[in-house]
């Protein structure tokens, strides 16, 4: 039934005895949780973990909420989930930014419920009035309607009134202004007509208008952008303190902001480099992954320069500061990220663009209706106002308000079901227009796992000894060699020593074994200074990578590979993927220039797929960006989509989905406009009775919703790739580009 978990599930005891210590709240995203038995399996495993007080899985959001004591770390919980083959990552920070949005969505839902209640009851009374009630009965019905409508409008109309007022206070008339105007005028007019015992009242139209608009508003709120906070989490790479070496060799600790150019700092193993500097004594291995994206440590010795934020792994070194902290590499990345995110918020969504044309048009029409009826009837303000109100009500953007949010919500839930989490609703609109895709190499098109490509032939004794030696190091190259030589029998080694920046050595049966950097910088295996041979490595491609790039190319989207890695490694991967446009040795700044150079052209949007801290400015600067879930926090927060599964197949599929969504949204707008073309002249001529307005309004809304629901029928990404071999998906993409 469910692929992600097994079958049988035991009973679950959720609530355990409360233990001492403060309760912590952990929230995880568990994208592969897909059925009821996954839920039971996860919850029972959590209940058995020591320190966990209670756990509750949410299948709809694919999240897990764990209450635990201090005894347990989030890491232990993630490990436990991994052992059940569920990938999980913590989302506390994002979830916190989320609560404000949730509160807003909830209050909209409340307003919607009240409006729904009101419109149902008023409709009941109105139908009776339309079907022939007259005289005192009709007046009673209108009176009861008024008693319901007034509080309902006052409560449910608040989101619109508030937005209209805040728009007015800065001198702008937004889409909520005509809505508020129509609702209030209709309400006042109807009260007046009820008081004077006239045959028609507009309570139903006013309240139903609110109801339909609130549906759209609620769905739209679900899709709203979360506050991005990538810049904040980048600051965790900045060191707060540093150790200064004085002229006579004494050391003292200072705050990071007191670091000056020319100072000599001592960096111990495991500390981050506080400022851009040059090594003056000692040698070590440096984790430069935040600069290049490469996980493999780089050796550094006297005279080499270090970037701020990189991690000193193995040795203690003295460095001289070259640049002030605020001009360091890290500060530069932070600035680029800031600038990129500001640029991104300038995008105007399609619904807002529509509203800009729409709002003045509605006011002009209603005003024209009032004036022309005043002239036609010779100053009968009651009839003229009635016509003007019906024009306002009929043109009110029910269908227009639903056109975008419904399509986006349906599409986002489809993307989510296939493992793509959308962080920004506008991203879907921009994804539909992608003409260029830029990929990062390590961790994005490759899995970041090294495998051995070629290995010298080893005798049985050497085989076991080398494998045992390699198993003693956690360096990626050693791990790859160890994996390659499996199975092996462990042997006794003496004096195992890891040489920072060089390799690992040990004594075996009186001979010195060495794996590490040889004379020509390649990984060499030596026995007593005699070279046995060199090892070459390759990287494992991410599943679906080749298919993804082929599909994109067939769809006419140009592809580019950017990497901080060396030319040979990048070229090899580019050739395997058939990418002709590749660039190696790229710094974050170089990558930025590639991405934004493309962004300047009006032709189409650029999609960036990347994962590292070094990609974060690019991810934020690109029109649309996708990050794998294995990406650094900064990368995930800077991107629009997060891939919850390993396969890249989802990337071209998401573009197809975005194009389909775009088409549906355009159809929805067309439907709304057609409806207006028919309804507005009737209202203008005074033929729009309340009954007509109510039916027309509901009908147009229902048609738009039904059209959007067509997005539910979408083939899964894996199918899309299979079909791709014969061509139809590529065809679809192009067809979408034309439509």
């Amino acid at each position, binding site marked *: 039934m469910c692929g992600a978990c097994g079958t049988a599930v035991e*009973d679950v005891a959720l609530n355990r005895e409360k233990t001492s210590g403060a309760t912590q709240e952990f929230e995880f995203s568990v994208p592969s949780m897909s059925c*009821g038995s996954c*839920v039971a399996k996860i919850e029972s495993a959590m209940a058995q973990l020591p320190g966990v007080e209670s756990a509750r899985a*949410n*299948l*709809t959001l694919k999240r897990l909420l764990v209450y635990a004591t201090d005894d347990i770390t989030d890491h232990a919980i993630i490990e436990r989930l991994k052992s059940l083959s569920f990938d999980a990552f913590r989302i506390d920070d994002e979830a916190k930014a989320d609560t404000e949005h949730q509160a807003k969505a909830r209050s909209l839902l409340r307003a919607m419920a009240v409006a729904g209640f009101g419109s*149902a*009851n008023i409709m009941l009374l109105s139908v009776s009035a339309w079907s022939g009630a007259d005289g005192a009965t009709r007046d009673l019905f209108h009176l009861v309607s008024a008693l*319901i409508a007034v509080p309902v409008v006052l409560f449910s109309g608040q989101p619109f009134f508030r937005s209209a007022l805040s728009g007015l206070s800065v001198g702008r008339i937004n889409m909520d202004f005509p809505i508020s105007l129509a609702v209030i005028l209709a309400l006042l007019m109807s009260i007046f007509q009820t008081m004077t015992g006239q045959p028609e009242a507009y309570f139903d139209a006013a309240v139903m208008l609110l109801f339909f608009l609130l549906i759209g508003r609620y769905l739209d709120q679900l899709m709203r952008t979360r506050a991005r906070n990538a810049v904040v989490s980048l600051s965790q790479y900045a060191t707060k303190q540093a150790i200064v070496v004085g002229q006579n060799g004494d050391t003292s600790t200072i705050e990071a902001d007191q670091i000056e150019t020319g100072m000599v700092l001592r960096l111990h193993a495991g500390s981050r480099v506080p400022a851009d500097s040059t090594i003056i004594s000692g040698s070590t291995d440096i984790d430069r992954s935040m600069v290049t994206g490469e996980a493999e440590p780089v050796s550094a010795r006297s005279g080499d320069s270090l970037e701020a934020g990189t991690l000193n792994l193995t040795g203690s070194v003295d460095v001289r500061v070259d640049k002030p902290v605020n001009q360091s590499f890290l500060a530069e990345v932070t600035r680029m990220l800031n600038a990129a995110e500001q640029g991104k918020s300038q995008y105007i969504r399609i619904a807002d663009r529509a509203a800009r044309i729409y709002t003045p048009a509605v006011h002009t029409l209603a005003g024209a209706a009032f004036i022309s009826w005043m002239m036609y009837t010779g100053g009968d303000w009651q009839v003229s106002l009635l016509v003007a109100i019906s024009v306002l009500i009929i043109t009110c953007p029910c269908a227009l308000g639903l056109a975008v949010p419904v399509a986006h919500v349906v599409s986002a839930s489809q993307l989510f079901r296939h493992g793509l989490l959308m962080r920004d609703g506008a991203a879907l609109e921009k994804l539909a227009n992608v003409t260029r895709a830029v990929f990062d190499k390590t961790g994005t098109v490759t899995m970041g796992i090294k495998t051995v490509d070629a290995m010298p032939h080893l005798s049985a004794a050497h085989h076991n000894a080398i494998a045992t030696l390699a198993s003693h190091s956690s360096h990626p190259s050693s791990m790859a060699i160890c994996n390659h030589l499996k199975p092996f029998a462990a042997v006794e080694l003496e004096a195992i020593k890891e040489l920072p920046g060089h390799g690992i050595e040990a004594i075996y049966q009186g001979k010195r074994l060495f794996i590490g950097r040889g004379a020509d910088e390649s990984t060499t295996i030596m026995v007593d200074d005699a070279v046995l041979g060199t090892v070459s490595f390759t990287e494992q491609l991410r599943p679906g990578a080749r298919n993804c790039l082929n599909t994109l190319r067939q769809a006419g989207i140009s592809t580019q590979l950017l990497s901080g890695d060396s030319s040979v490694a990048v070229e090899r991967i580019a050739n395997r993927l058939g990418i002709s446009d590749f660039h190696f040795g790229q710094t974050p700044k170089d990558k930025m220039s590639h991405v934004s150079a493309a962004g300047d052209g009006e032709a189409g949007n650029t999609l960036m797929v990347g994962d590292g801290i070094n990609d974060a400015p690019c991810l934020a600067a690109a029109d649309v960006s996708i990050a794998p879930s294995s990406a650094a926090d900064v990368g995930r927060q800077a991107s629009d989509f997060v891939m919850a599964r390993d396969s890249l197949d989802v990337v071209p599929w998401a573009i197809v989905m975005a194009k389909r969504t775009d088409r549906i949204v355009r159809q929805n707008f067309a439907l709304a406009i057609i409806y207006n073309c028919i309804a507005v002249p009737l209202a203008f001529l005074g033929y729009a009775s309340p009954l007509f307005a109510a039916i027309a309004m509901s009908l147009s809304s229902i048609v738009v919703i039904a059209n959007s629901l067509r997005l539910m029928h979408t083939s899964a990404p894996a199918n899309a790739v299979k079909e791709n071999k014969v061509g139809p998906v590529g065809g679809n993409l192009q067809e979408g580009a034309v439509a």
Partner: protein
Amino acid sequence: MNQLVFLIPVALFLGGVGLVAFLWCLKNGQFDDPQGAAERILQDD
């Protein structure tokens, strides 16, 4: 005409009960995980 005096309040009252019930459910998180709730019925605990 006379029965309306009873029927209208009754209709409003019933509708109001539905509204209050919905708002109560919303506040208590009944709508937080509709998919999970559907699956949990099938678990035998």
